[in-house]
């Protein structure tokens, strides 16, 4: 498809700028020419050009509204339309972050109540809503850990990360100036307790655990894990990106976690927007509350206001108050489905995942044969052995069946991993259609491996050359 720049024509315009109602002055009279740009090379298009360009681009994009999107670890649940409408209310969209608190009582109340709901859901003392995404929340949480030990004048340099963890965990830890020590998983996909005992030395600040982990498995030995970490004065951090398995069923706070980040764009149904915006609130136990970022909403009687009078706070980790408009959607979602609905979310997310696991186990190798939580992980190893068909091939072939593929090659400890997260918003019929496709691909892999390796055949472009892209990087258009 042509680029905006290729469609540009000199003198073409979409709309005009209002005529000035104030005196016009030559720019260089007010700003020295040395500070002004000489030309502005932006495309010139009519409104219809723009609308058709982006509408056609949209037709080459697949979202949850198009079909099943079982991208493991990303919780691609349906995004309720009412949330979009609510978030579009002028009262929410048109407010400047610096309006006086008296003019933003609706927003402040919403933020205060949302933090309360998340605390109740996770069994935490309080939440900050400032982090802009999950990884940002991780970073915030790790900073809280740093602050905690700084206060205690303890020098702890290392944080433990299981080998199953998402890449953002070690990266967040590194961005906060900690060392990473990798914790092995045991044969049943949980924490290797012996290894944990070995690694959990006095210079270890804590363990960052994803529960359920990225294998979709709940940490059965959570009690032992918690007591080992706490026993050595460490803190237990929960990567809550997988909370869709737990809400209303159990609470990370009760399980012994000191800190958790949630991904509102996963568990709480806010749309992923092709990669963002998200929101990654962080909840902590009471002894860590003083360290949360500022400002924080405080309630005084029936009024709400911002306060940064928290001397032990780690400070700011984002401008203003975080991705407010995303929070409006999450709040709407929680109020819509209520306590019953929250529990139904996890029950059905887990039910759907286990159903897929059972349907596909005869055809694909199960990574760990246990009851899974909200997602299940297979290995494409069997197909590789039998016919040289790799997980990528299976994923690309799924495109021809009209499905978005699962997450692949993650978690890293599973060879040729296929990580399937159906979410609770998919019906049994959809799961059955997906399983039928996976089963027929397994058959194709046996009988006609080249077909699978040549997939996708029905997409607007065929399999892309990633290697070329990386070898000869072309990250912006320079021709016109």
């Amino acid at each position, binding site marked *: 498809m042509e680029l905006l720049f290729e469609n540009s024509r000199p003198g073409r*315009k979409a709309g005009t700028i209002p005529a000035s109602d104030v005196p016009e002055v030559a720019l260089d009279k007010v700003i020295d020419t040395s*500070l002004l740009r000489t030309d502005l090379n932006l495309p010139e298009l009519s409104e219809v050009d723009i609308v058709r360009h982006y509408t056609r681009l949209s037709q080459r994009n697949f979202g949850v509204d198009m079909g099943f999107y079982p991208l493991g670890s990303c919780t691609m649940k349906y995004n309720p339309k009412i949330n979009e409408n609510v978030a579009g209310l002028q009262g929410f969209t048109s407010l400047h972050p610096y309006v006086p608190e008296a003019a933003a009582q609706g927003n402040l109340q919403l933020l205060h109540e949302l933090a309360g709901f998340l605390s109740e859901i996770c069994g935490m003392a309080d939440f900050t809503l400032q982090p802009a995404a999950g990884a940002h929340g991780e970073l915030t949480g790790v900073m809280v850990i740093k602050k905690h030990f700084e206060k205690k004048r303890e020098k702890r340099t290392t944080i433990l990360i299981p080998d199953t963890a998402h890449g953002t965990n070690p990266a967040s830890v590194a961005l906060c100036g900690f060392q*990473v020590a990798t914790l092995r998983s045991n044969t049943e996909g949980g924490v290797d307790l012996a290894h944990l005992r070995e690694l959990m030395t006095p210079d270890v600040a804590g363990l960052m655990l994803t529960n359920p982990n990225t294998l979709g498995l709940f940490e059965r030995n959570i009690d032992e894990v918690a007591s080992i970490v706490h026993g050595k004065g460490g803190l237990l951090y929960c990567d809550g990106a997988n909370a869709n398995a737990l809400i209303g069923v159990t609470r990370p706070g009760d399980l012994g976690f000191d800190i958790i980040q949630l991904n509102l764009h996963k568990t709480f149904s806010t749309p*992923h927007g092709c990669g963002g*915006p998200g929101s990654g609130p962080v909840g902590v136990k009471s002894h860590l509350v003083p360290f949360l970022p500022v400002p924080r909403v405080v309630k005084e009687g029936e009024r709400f206001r911002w306060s940064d009078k928290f001397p032990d706070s780690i400070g700011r980790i*984002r401008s203003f108050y975080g991705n407010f408009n995303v929070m409006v959607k999450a709040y709407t979602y929680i109020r819509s489905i209520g306590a019953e609905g929250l529990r139904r979310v996890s029950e059905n997310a887990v039910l759907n995942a286990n159903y897929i696991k059972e349907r596909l186990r005869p055809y694909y190798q199960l990574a760990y044969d246990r009851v899974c939580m909200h997602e299940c992980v297979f290995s494409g190893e069997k197909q590789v052995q039998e016919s040289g068909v790799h997980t990528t091939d299976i994923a690309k072939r799924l495109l021809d069946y009209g499905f978005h593929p699962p997450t692949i090659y993650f978690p890293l400890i599973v060879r040729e991993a296929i990580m399937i997260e159906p979410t609770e918003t998919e019906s049994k019929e959809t799961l059955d259609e997906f399983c039928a496709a996976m089963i027929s691909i397994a058959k194709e892999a046996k009988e006609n491996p080249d077909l699978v390796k040549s997939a996708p055949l029905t997409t607007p472009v065929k399999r892309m050359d990633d290697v070329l892209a990386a070898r000869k990087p072309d990250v912006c258009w320079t021709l016109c």
Partner: protein
Amino acid sequence: MDYVPNTLQDQQQMMKAIGIEALEALFVDIPEKYRLKKLLEIPPPMSEQEIWEHMTRIAARNVTPRSTLLGAGVYHHYIPAVVHHIIARSEFYTAYTPYQAEISQGILQAIYEYQTMITRLTGTQVANASMYDGATAMAEAAVLSAKTLGKNRLLLARSIHPEYRAVVKTYAWANGYDCVEIPCAASGQIDSGALKDQLDDRTAAVLVQSPNFFGIVEDVKPLADLAHGRGALLVAGFTDATSLGILKPAGEAGADFVVGEGQSFGNPMNYGGPYLGILASTDAFLRKIPGRLAGATVDREGCRGYVLTLQTREQHIRREKATSNICSNEALCMLAAAVYLASLGKNLKKLATLNVWKANYFRAKLAALPGWKPLFPGPVYNEFALACPDVKSANSRLESAGYTGGYDLSREYPELGGGILLCATEMLRKEDMDNIAALLK
């Protein structure tokens, strides 16, 4: 109401297939004592009609001003209708990161086009697909500078947005870097003498913002030369992104990183977010910058297409060795910016010029009031700082007339007591400015 399609019958059939009697059996791995016996203490569900009425009431508890005089990092600009029509297409807003390029060419090409427009606006060679916001973009540029050079000292212009400085300091603290603030000169621009004095071999980067927090346009070139002279990098920020329509691109002036807030490009104020962190740099940092990058390539049949590229920079490949931890970003805000820039095109210069005219008129108008005068003589874009007799009373008079007040500089700059920061974009009518001048007399 909830969004679970499974009927009781569906659940029974699925439990049968799994071989369990009750849903409870799915949670055997959770120690019994930790399984919730009762519902969470969350209000009961609502029908869609009820939630709509409820949320409308909450929104109505906010007061929408007739005009916004606040800038200070967030700007009220007109958003062309096309922007929302495009980003409201569910093919875009219900998709995630384009890991599967073959069914994600739409957003991938849009990112590629956005990257191109940003490099052109900033005078750089590479721009990523977005950071969380302007502040984190600046903080990550600073941390990346320090890591790249193996130095641990950051010099921040005090004229940088206070919240940006705060975020940079938090990131610096976490990594054990020192931050030193460089005051601003009488002009309102950075005090280059003080900067020269502070520059040393431990200095990783000099951070400035132009227009700066006071709306003053900085002269980036000499600052870049100074920094480079001591082997440091220059991180150039900006406040209102529309200023890029007329100001000399910091990249051309020698900045190594150009970072800032892209909210002005088609994103509503939304009480602080979601916004758009813009991060652009030179070829030298192509393989180092954080965030997603879309690159052009070809498919098996040789047709042009786009993919996420140079991912070895990223956390999912390099884990603790990644150049950043960012994963989800602000893609939809980026798409809004792309559509915004496509629809303004060369008109962006006209728009920016109109902003300059409005601000200069407004500043002159207010400076004529008894006791009011500009805090700084330096050139302004669409924002300006004034000294006035009493900020609080001025603001309360503005607010009772239905306007927002201005930004009280004493909040973050005790040395600027009596200072007020005001902004005039294309949204502020002359009529209002005159009206305001009258009621502040």
